[in-house]
């Protein structure tokens, strides 16, 4: 592992950050806004903020306000998103050609495996879960009429466990340039033993040794040679798991006991329902992963045999991991479905079609999600009778997902559709989720899975869900609630550009992967120049190039988004009380009522210089947003 390679990567990251920064600053001198001084304009609540919070950086370190903590979660998740995204860009550039070239000087295949691991872990644990916590922290108390979360201090603790968790998870990358015995983990995000128990910093197997030119397997582990980066990653993962569990406990207590007197269970909004279900899933799955991680750590460092052949073996690990891992999929997808169910009706001019059934399907998914885990293990040689049972439940879980999809489509049917940026992302969500979902139904069938297992088909399938659906819903939420959080409106043109680049990029990248999978391209490979079959190498190369181009388009789109967010937050037009004209359609919502009240209270208190004419400035740009749907 070359020191120069690590430095080159750091340099590349730095350059990208600088480019974004330069682009953002070109628009204006943003220092005039001094976001962290004097009570903080960043939260957009200077009107009364300084009464209850200290100023400056101390405000952010000490805050127990759910809205501030939501913003902290959001910023944290975006940093993680950038890390995971840049990691995968390097991988995509490597895969554009069959041979090892782009990463050759940085550590080759071992480095590719490190990027692969970091990308998966970062996107799932450090981006996915926290970005959803950002939304739920900010909006659940507003939506259910609570003053704050049930446990505001636990809320803050849960957030502050995350940055150290990320540092531990990434620590292998930071320490590798300085020490020989450590590298970033190369276990992939699933961390299967025996690999995860016995991998050295060079990516070799600490359980085998070479003798007379032959590799001999052994039951001994050379513990001193094990990659300490994996240990640090496991510790960091455990820490983020503790954080997620604390958050889940907090949301359950909040939604159960802090609802306003006029918010009965029958009045609970769809987003809160999905967060409640998600929290229940977290509650029973994350601690189990935590225990499995501790067992792995003990196996690695204290010579216990939990996942050794003599003990439970690797199949036990897979059972434990996927008993967490599959609910984790729904932990990540249910709140985005809630955001879609919440936002889509506002721009369709209709109430959500079949609200009750959307709630029931959420609960059904929550229950069924604990009964499908072994479909990740169809190819592991488990009992065929077991496989048949899990196949049935896995196929069954498609039904509640389809119920939701049809409800969204029927909500839009004959509706007064306004193609605003959040609405575009909602529709993009549905389109991508259908592809991601249908490819998943095929994988749930044992015979099909045995052919497509561990190919790019699987990668394409779950990225259609994770990027095509979950990230799309996140963006829909970001754009929809941006006026509340920042008090300003984003740039609509950039928003649309972001949507189209993301939509095109997603489909280019991940549809190519589905075709790659049909061709038999295995996942997790850094190179494919070993393929000798006539014609197939060209097929692989072409599709990989298409996927890489798509990924690059995605990168451009996300930079546009970041610029838009930063610039609009600092100097976008200040919005009025009802930026989306929800009242007109008879679809008011509690969080925008709260937003309107806040503007009123601020004005009554004497206002603030930055918001000279919030009332007149507000409706305008949003009305203009309707033009996009001129043909309605």
């Amino acid at each position: 592992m070359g020191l120069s390679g690590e430095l080159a990567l750091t340099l590349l990251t730095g350059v990208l950050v600088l480019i974004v920064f330069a682009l953002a600053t070109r628009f204006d001198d943003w220092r005039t806004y001094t976001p962290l001084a004097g009570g903080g304009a960043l939260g957009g609540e200077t009107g009364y903020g300084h009464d209850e919070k200290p100023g400056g950086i101390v405000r952010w370190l000490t805050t127990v306000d759910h809205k501030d903590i939501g913003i902290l979660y959001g910023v944290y998740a975006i940093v993680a998103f950038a890390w995971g995204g840049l990691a995968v860009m390097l991988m995509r550039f490597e895969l554009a050609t069959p041979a090892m070239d782009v990463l050759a000087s940085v550590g080759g295949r071992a480095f590719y495996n490190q990027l692969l691991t970091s990308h998966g872990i970062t996107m799932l644990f450090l981006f996915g879960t926290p970005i959803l916590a950002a939304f739920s922290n900010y909006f659940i108390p507003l939506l259910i009429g609570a003053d704050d979360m049930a446990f505001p201090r636990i809320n803050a603790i849960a957030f502050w466990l995350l940055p150290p968790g990320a540092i531990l998870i990434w620590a292998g990358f930071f320490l590798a340039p300085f020490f020989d015995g450590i590298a970033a983990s190369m276990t992939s995000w699933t961390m299967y033993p025996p690999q995860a128990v016995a991998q050295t910093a060079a990516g070799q197997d600490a359980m085998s040794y070479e003798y007379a030119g032959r590799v001999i397997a052994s039951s001994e582990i050379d513990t001193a040679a094990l990659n300490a980066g994996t240990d640090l990653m496991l510790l960091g993962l455990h820490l983020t798991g503790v954080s997620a569990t604390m958050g889940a406990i907090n949301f359950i207590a909040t939604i159960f006991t802090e609802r306003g007197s006029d918010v009965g269970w029958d009045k609970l909004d769809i987003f809160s329902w999905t967060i409640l279900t998600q929290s229940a899933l977290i509650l029973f799955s994350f601690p189990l992963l935590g225990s499995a991680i501790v067992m792995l750590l003990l196996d690695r460092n204290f010579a216990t045999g939990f996942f050794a052949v003599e003990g439970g073996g690797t199949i036990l690990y897979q059972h434990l991991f996927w008993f967490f891992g599959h609910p984790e999929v729904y932990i990540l997808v249910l709140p985005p479905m809630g955001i879609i169910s919440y936002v889509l009706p506002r721009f369709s001019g209709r109430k959500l079609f079949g609200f009750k059934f959307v709630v029931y399907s959420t609960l059904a998914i929550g229950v069924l999600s604990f009964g499908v885990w072994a479909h990740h293990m169809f190819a592991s040689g488990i009992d065929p009778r077991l496989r048949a049972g899990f196949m049935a439940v896995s196929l069954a879980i498609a039904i509640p997902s389809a119920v939701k999809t049809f409800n969204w489509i029927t909500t839009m049917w004959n509706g007064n559709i306004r193609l605003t940026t959040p609405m575009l992302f909602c529709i993009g969500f549905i389109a991508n989720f259908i592809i991601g979902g249908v490819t998943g139904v095929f994988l749930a069938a044992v015979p099909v899975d045995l052919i497509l297992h561990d190919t790019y088909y699987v990668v394409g399938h779950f990225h259609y869900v994770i990027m095509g659906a979950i990230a799309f819903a996140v963006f829909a939420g970001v754009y929809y609630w941006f006026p509340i959080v920042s008090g300003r409106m984003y740039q609509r043109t950039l928003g649309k550009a972001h949507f189209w680049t993301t939509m095109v990029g997603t489909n280019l990248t991940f549809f190519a992967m589905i075709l790659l999978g049909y061709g038999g391209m295995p996942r997790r490979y850094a190179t494919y120049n070993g393929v000798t079959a006539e014609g197939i190498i060209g097929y692989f190369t072409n599709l990989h190039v298409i996927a890489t181009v798509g990924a690059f388009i995605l990168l451009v789109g996300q930079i546009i988004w970041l610029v838009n967010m930063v610039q609009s937050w600092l100097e976008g037009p200040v919005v009025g009380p009802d930026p989306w004209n929800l009242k007109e359609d008879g679809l008011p919502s509690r969080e925008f009522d709260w937003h309107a009240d806040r503007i009123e209270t601020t004005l009554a208190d004497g206002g603030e210089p930055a918001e000279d004419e919030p009332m007149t400035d507000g409706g305008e740009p949003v009305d203009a947003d309707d033009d996009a749907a001129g043909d309605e």
Partner: protein
Amino acid sequence: MSATEDAGDHGHGGHLPAVEDFPRGFGEASWWPFVTAIGGSGIYVGAALFLLAARGGFGIGMGTAAAVSIGSIGLFVFGILGWLYHGFVASFWQRHKSEQSESKLVWGMYAFLGSEIATFSAGFIYFFFIQAGGLGEIPDVFGSLVIFNTLLLIASSFVLHFSEVALRNGNRKRFVTLLGATLLMGIIFIGGQVYEYYEFLAVKNFTPAAIAGGEVIYSNPFASAFYALTGLHGLHVTLGAVLLGIVFVRGLRGQYSAERHVSVKTAALYWHFVDVVWIFLVAAIYIGATAL
């Protein structure tokens, strides 16, 4: 509209979460979460340093790892105590009793116990997994000490229950006495467990693995299950004893009344949960492994 009241209340500080806190004077600021989180994370960093020190070659000694760990544990405990003090203890009698704030604490405890089920279940699943494949030769773990400890823990749950009943009936003296008795029984239980560990590890040489001359021998997969589950349970009993200890001290200082006893209730819930887990554990590990 309640949203209006919500926004209005912030102006008057009626429902601010951290009125009584450090730094004082703000309603929505507290240093305790940050301090606690840094302390808690520091424990993980300490563990990481310990592993790095054990590997060698990182220029980190066991001393550094120990110092970071101990410092972090101190910071963590300091943060928790500060939070407890400002959140619950300092203005105990001034705060309005509200059904809502009580039920949220109880729900929070129920949710936490749900997550604990998941934590324990991984260990139980490991045990049942290896049991299905045959445990092989295992030492006789079931004995008079286990029976004594089990009866003691079950009895402590009853004593704790009667302590709660006494508080609800307004009999403070009986409440504090019985609570103290529960605490004592818990401590004796932990002592019994420590003695059992000593007996098994040092005398009977019943270990999950042995490292002889650099070679690792997986002597007994059952031992891994045994120590993982009893160890995890022991940690939980210890935490339960700490919780009861806090409640006990607060009780001695005159807090709690027939109407205000939510933290007695949540600590008791936790204690009963740990008790139930122990019964499962005895049935599965101690009796199940040897008798079946």
